[in-house]
């Protein structure tokens, strides 16, 4: 999730496009990270210092860490921590940005510095680009934290269960005419309705990813597969609430095509993915 936060942050700041974010998240998961990128990410070295080390490296055929220590820029202990952190998956985002030339070392350094001060805000910030800012309702602030928490869990579940990375993009008007609406309600001490608004192709892709089966068209099995994915996400959310002593029940999922989604304090969060647009709906009661 950390790598997703960083990627989302860079998108929110208009430093990367949604296409670039998805390219990085989807294709560079296991990229080996250069020690300079780790040092920049950890805030141990500036872009200028890294470029200086790299120039010396080329002339003297030495390792990055050796030069950094001999130049007095890093201690041996710091070099050790850099090498140990190279396997950290969220660093692959920074490495991919440099490798693909999306940003210069100096630009990335500046962005990372700002990100370190605001690193938990990327999902909150994304919401300001979504429908949240359109709703002028004082009560809405009461559910904001819950919606953000659910959205973070949903984005994690996309990666965990479907191997799909997502980036939250600006919201659009809800057009449900040709789309499937799959919903599920959780109620009890917390009341929450969640739903997915998807075109046929995205239903199929999600169903195939979740069921690990080839599916020809949107049939009962495909819809059941998407509904089961939503059910598992909501189950995890109910467990998280239960751990805070909040007793919540989960209701059977529903689905229909061309249904206009209802719901009190309902928001639509547009998530761009490699399989197409996923519209995640959240409301403070049932949807549909």
């Amino acid at each position: 999730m950390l790598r997703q936060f960083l990627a989302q942050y860079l998108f929110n700041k208009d430093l990367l496009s949604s296409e670039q974010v998805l390219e990085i998240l989807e294709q560079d998961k296991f990229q080996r990270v250069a020690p300079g990128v780790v040092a920049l990410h950890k805030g141990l070295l500036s872009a200028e210092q890294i470029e200086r080390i790299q120039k010396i490296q080329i002339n003297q055929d030495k390792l990055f860490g050796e030069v950094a220590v001999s130049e007095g820029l890093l201690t041996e202990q710091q070099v050790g921590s850099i090498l140990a952190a190279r396997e950290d998956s969220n660093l692959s985002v920074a490495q991919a940005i440099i490798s693909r030339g999306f940003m210069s070392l100096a630009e990335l350094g500046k962005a990372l510095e700002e990100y370190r001060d605001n690193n938990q805000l990327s999902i909150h910030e994304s919401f300001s680009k979504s429908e949240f800012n359109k709703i002028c309702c004082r009560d809405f602030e009461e559910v904001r934290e819950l919606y953000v928490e659910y959205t973070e869990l949903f984005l994690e579940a996309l990666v965990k269960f479907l191997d799909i990375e997502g980036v939250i993009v600006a919201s659009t008007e809800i057009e449900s005419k040709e789309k499937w609406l799959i919903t599920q309600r959780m109620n009890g001490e917390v009341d929450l309705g969640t739903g997915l608004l998807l075109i046929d192709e995205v239903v199929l892709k999600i169903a195939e990813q979740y069921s690990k089966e080839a599916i020809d068209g949107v049939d009962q099995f495909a819809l059941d597969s998407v509904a089961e994915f939503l059910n598992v996400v909501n189950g995890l959310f109910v467990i998280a609430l239960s751990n805070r002593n909040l007793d919540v029940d989960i209701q059977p999922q529903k689905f229909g095509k061309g249904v206009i989604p209802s719901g009190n304090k309902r928001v639509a969060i547009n998530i761009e993915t490699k399989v197409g647009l996923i519209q995640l709906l959240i409301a403070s009661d049932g949807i549909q």
Partner: protein
Amino acid sequence: MLEKALKILICDDSSLLRKKLTQELESRDCEVMEAKNGKEAVMMFLKEHPHGIFMDIVMPEVGGMEALKAIREIDKKAYVVMLSSAGSSAKLLESLKLGAVDFIQKPYTTEQIDKALTDLRKKVDSNA
């Protein structure tokens, strides 16, 4: 001596789960039957007398808890394993109180199914 095949009833409203779990159980030489909701599960239990049941909790019409209660009223020794995405401690306690022998959170793992089958096999063999 050849082991008697375990007869298992799967009750879940999701065709995905029924298909996947059937494949898992048949690959372990179980005889599998399916029900789409709690009502069908109770009817099938009466008719087929399965050795064990994998029962979803959240289903339309008659849910898993209701069906568990009905089945345990019919047979106090019925071997029912509950399956649910919402594995909260309250749900776990409630199902155990109603007589379920185990609670598996979705998505289930092969190891959880293996353990449930091993326990069921022991129970069937001790009653033979």
